[in-house]
Each structure stands twice: as C-alpha cells, then as structure tokens.
C-alpha cells in the first residue's frame, strides 16, 4: 500500500516539474522569437528607409548643383560674340554627408550637354541628372560639402574654356 502510494505520487510530481520547466522554456523561446522577429523587421525597415532618404537627399542636392551649373552656363553665355568672360564662380554650401554617409559628385560631358552623378558607397545609391548646357564642361568629381562651379582654363592656354566643379 505504501509502495503503491509512492509509485502513484512520484510520476505526478515529475509531471508538474516538467510542465513548469517546459513553460519557462516555451516562454523564453517565444520571447526570443518575438524579439528577434521585431529586431530583424525593424533592421530591414531602417535599411530601406535609409536608402530612400539617401536617394531623396542626393536628388535634392543634385538639383541644386544642376541649378548652379546652369546659372554658371548662362553667365558664361551672356558674354556673347563681342564680349569676354573675366570670371564666373557660383558656389553653394551643401550638406557634407547624407544620412551619415559621404557622397561624391561627378560632372561628365555628354553629347549635347552633361550628366551630373551623385553617389554614395554605403548604402550604394546613385542619382543621375541630365543637363543641357551650352558651355562645355570638364569631367570633374568632388566630394560633398561646399561646391563651386567655375569657368576655368582647363587646357593651360591662358583662356578660360570649360565649367568645372571644385570643392570650395
């Protein structure tokens, strides 16, 4: 009788303890699953938002630099046939980083105009803006910050001939 009682009591006790341990383990697992799920999804959200922000900021900065290049182009063209340009400089302060990463601005001559390319390394985002300018442009690249568009002598003959981008 005594032996039987012990036998029937033991398994019940074991079950209860197992359920408590299992309960903790399950809660822990669910908590970890939830937390890691949240972390992964917010991490993805941050990366995605960062790329979008960088893209938007580069577009805005690009449009502003494009406006400066166009302004410089108009000023150079204003000299006409009889006149000559002494100097044309247009400068502006831009943010030196976009969402914490630095960027490069490149101006490249194309057929019938030029292309302005703004790019960042991390995240890898690149924005291109096409320009229709009359004054020839020299291929030049500068880093973000204070950027100056100037009419400069690029072939060393003492005559100003092309628009270039320079860091101020």
């Amino acid at each position, binding site marked *: 009788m005594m032996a039987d009682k012990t036998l029937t009591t033991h398994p019940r006790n074991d079950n209860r303890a197992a359920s*408590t*341990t299992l309960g*903790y*383990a399950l*809660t*822990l697992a669910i*908590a*970890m699953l939830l*937390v*890691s799920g*949240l*972390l992964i999804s*917010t*991490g993805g*959200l*941050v990366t995605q*938002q*960062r790329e*979008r*922000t960088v893209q*938007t*900021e580069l*577009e*805005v*900065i690009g*449009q*502003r630099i494009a*406006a*400066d290049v*166009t*302004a*410089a182009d*108009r*000023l150079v063209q*204003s*000299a*006409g046939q*009889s*006149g*000559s*340009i*002494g*100097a*044309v*400089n*247009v*400068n*502006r302060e831009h943010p030196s980083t*976009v*969402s914490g990463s630095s960027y490069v601005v490149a101006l490249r001559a194309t057929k019938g105009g030029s292309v302005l390319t703004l790019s960042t390394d991390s995240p890898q985002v690149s924005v291109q803006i096409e320009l229709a300018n009359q004054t020839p442009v020299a291929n030049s690249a500068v880093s973000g910050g204070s950027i100056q568009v100037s009419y400069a002598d690029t072939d060393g003959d003492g005559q100003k001939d092309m628009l270039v981008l320079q860091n101020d």
Partner: protein
Amino acid sequence: MADVIPIDRERGQILLLGGLILAATFVLLAVILNGMIYAENVASQGEDARADDALRFRSETEEAIAGTLRQVNGDTSLGPAAFTSSIRDWESVTAELMVERGARVSVRTVTVVGDSTHISSVTIHVEYQTRRTYYAVQFEVKAP
C-alpha cells in the same frame, strides 16, 4: 526551482537587451526620417535667382552706357573725358545702391574708341559679386 531561476534571469536579459536595441533602432529611424524631411524642406524652397540678378545688372549697365554715349556724342563740347567721368559717377551711385541689395559691383571703362568729339565704341569691364556668385565680364558697347 534552483534550475529555473537562471532561465528566468536570462529571459529578463533578452527582453532588456531586445528592448534596448529596438529603442536604439527607433531613434535611428527618427534621425533618418528627419534627414528626409530636411531634404524635402530644402527641395521646396524657391531657387534664388543668382544668374538673373547678375545678368540684369549687366544689361542695366549696358543701357546706361549706351545712354551716356548718346548724350556725349550729341553734345560736341563733350568728349571721351566727359564720358569716363560720367561713367565713374554712375558707378559710385550704382555701387551704393547695389550694396543695399547685397552685391558688390564695379564698372570700369577699358578702352574708348573715337576722336575728341565722337566716340564710336567703348569696352566696359563689369564685376558683380555676391556671397555666392562672382561674375566678371568685358564687353563692347557701340555708339547708337
């Protein structure tokens, strides 16, 4: 129960750490979105007409010089010296006015072609400088 307590503590750590990382992520997200708002704010600002002002000043100068040439050529008692001094007077008045508009300007007569009573053309050097734009041009104005 002795086995259970460490598990309980670990769970607390995971929640705490997870919460902290999540909080940091949301702060980062706020900073990034702030950058986006800034960019959109900058984009909505009107483009300041930097080339327009410089070009307007240049054409105003051209008009003023053409007018002065007409006046000097119409009066036989006036010659190149009168023209140069007239332009100098005009420049000093204009420069003062332009300073109020935030620009430093200078107008200089480079060459005057003609004789003592009639000027056929002049070459003018104009400089226009604001905080962001520098524009120097030399051009010829023919007598009307």
